[in-house]
């Protein structure tokens, strides 16, 4: 064994640190700094002003009890995050539970888990867009409903609506819930399920008292994935909402398009703080480190 210098761990960690610094920390600091700059229609000036932040909340106090734009937008985005989180959790939990506790052979479990990830070979946007011919006014679903005589005119709310946005979110993100849940559930000793059965627990009681508590870290990690993705999204909401539904990500995107970088940066910082506090709250409830 060669004696290790006390610097060994540092240079071993250096490559990853460098990647993080260049691609994560520097842009983050830049965003933070720029959020205090001044801008007008044709230029951006380094400065130290809180104006961008006051502009975000412009009229929020004066306009009460009517909610201002930014609060309404956050509320709408949080609503999407909550609905999508609940749906992906229920669907993801069911699928993971089925794979772990009802499929008997390991080979079959691996095959089915891989099947769950296959949609990931296609880009998010393509998977999103492929809903359009299905859900449109003259789409497959409407034609089928009309043909079967279930409705007498095409349903409008199938596409470019809250419904289609939620549908696409759930479709795209359920797998982020499935994978951490699979990881947690595979670690549950099967004899615990038998022990619960032996002590007279019903299937539901076993689920509530044994499986769910032991899947808590998986639920937390999956929730972090889904919530952060939905909170920052602007593409899915844009495409599936027909560019008609507001979201926090959309605000930032529009401001960047108009070259209002300092304002966009301020909004980005606000969003970051919001999402970080949500994650912090989650980690308060569940100790995620156990799983890592």
């Amino acid at each position, binding site marked *: 064994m060669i004696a290790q210098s006390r610097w060994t761990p540092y240079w071993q960690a250096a490559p990853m640190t460098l990647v993080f610094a260049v691609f994560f920390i520097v842009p983050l600091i830049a965003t933070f700094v720029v959020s205090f700059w001044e801008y007008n229609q044709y230029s951006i000036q380094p400065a130290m002003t809180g104006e961008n932040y006051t502009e975000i909340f412009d009229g929020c106090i004066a306009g009460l009890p009517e909610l201002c734009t930014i609060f309404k937008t956050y509320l709408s985005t949080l609503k999407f995050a909550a609905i999508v989180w609940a749906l992906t959790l229920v669907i993801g939990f069911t699928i993971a539970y089925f794979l772990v506790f009802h499929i008997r052979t390991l080979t079959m479990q691996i095959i089915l888990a891989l099947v769950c990830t296959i949609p990931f070979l296609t880009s998010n946007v393509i998977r999103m867009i492929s809903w359009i011919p299905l859900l449109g006014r003259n789409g497959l679903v409407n034609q089928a409903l009309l043909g079967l005589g279930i409705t007498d005119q095409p349903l409008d709310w199938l596409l470019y609506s809250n419904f289609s946005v939620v549908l696409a979110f759930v479709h795209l993100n359920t797998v982020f819930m499935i994978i951490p849940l699979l990881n947690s559930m595979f670690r549950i000793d099967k004899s*615990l399920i038998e022990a619960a059965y*032996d002590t*007279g627990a019903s299937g539901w009681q076993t689920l509530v*008292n044994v499986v769910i508590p032991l899947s808590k870290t998986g639920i937390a990690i999956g929730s972090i994935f889904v919530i952060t993705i939905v909170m920052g999204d602007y593409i899915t909401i844009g495409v599936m909402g027909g560019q008609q539904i507001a979201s926090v990500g959309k605000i930032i995107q529009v401001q960047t398009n108009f070259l209002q970088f300092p304002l966009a940066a301020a909004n980005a910082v606000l969003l970051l703080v919001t999402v970080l506090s949500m994650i912090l709250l989650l980690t308060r409830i569940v100790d995620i480190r156990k799983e890592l």
Partner: protein
Amino acid sequence: MSQPADLELASVSKKYGDTIAVEAINLKIKAGTYCCLLGPSGCGKSSTLRMIAGHELVSDGDIVLGPRVVNDDPPAKRGTAMMFQSYALFPHLSVLDNVAFSLKMRGETKAVRHERARAMLETVDMEAYAERLPAQLSGGQQQRVALARALVTEPSILLLDEPLSALDPFLRIRMRAELKRLQRDLGISFIHVTHSQEEAMALADLVVVMNNGVIEQSGSPRDVFNAPRTKFVAQFIGGHNVVPVDGGEISIRSDRLKIVDPSEPSSPTSLAGTVTGIEYQGSTVLLTLVTEQAGDISVTLPERSFFESPMETGEKVSVAWASEDAHALA
């Protein structure tokens, strides 16, 4: 308190596809019996236990517990409780909540279930650890908790799946004595699966030796040890020699063999051989002989008599036995 109950297996079989794990076994276990299911791995003892427990469906035959056929009842309804080999304690629950688990499932209030769980923890000497998590306990302590969790349901039969196999030898002997004491105090039947004949001998009122899915022999440890019915039993419980004779095989306990002068004429109750191994075991000395007629033979001699006329490996000796010590094997 728990209601002791008789258990009867009537022609019980377990098939997994084409393989037969347990083949039409019949067994009666009177209430309050310490019964050991003994056999090598894959002999069907665990399947039998799991069928009694209700964790495995019976392919054929009936399991009768007390006055009822319980084939289709879930474990809690049968009045059996099982202690798992790995203890299967719930890692997210404290010791107290682990023990109170079945009471919670039954819908008892928190006060009632905690009181009863504490009382049960006291029985197994673990009340000081009530608030700990299972991961903070040693193997022996985990086992006591598992025992308390199984007993809190007041079962009429406790089923133990290799309960001592995860413990170190010292603790194993201590827990063994405690299991026996607990069984006597509670007055219910314990059915204990093990592959250790020593454990079975020490604990059981009724030893059931199994092999290839059938019961080779059942009886009190003394009966089984003194008169093994088959060659398998004689070899598995140890301390026996199987000697081929005209018209079959006989078994002779290794401590009933005597060393005799090799110059004496051979008789039907003696064998000539060469010493191949000498093992000092404290109060006894184990001699291994190789004979032409019966292969390897082991002889256990009291320490004193061995050292009165010591032998060395390679020496030619003869062993003889009294004809009443030979048992014909089926």
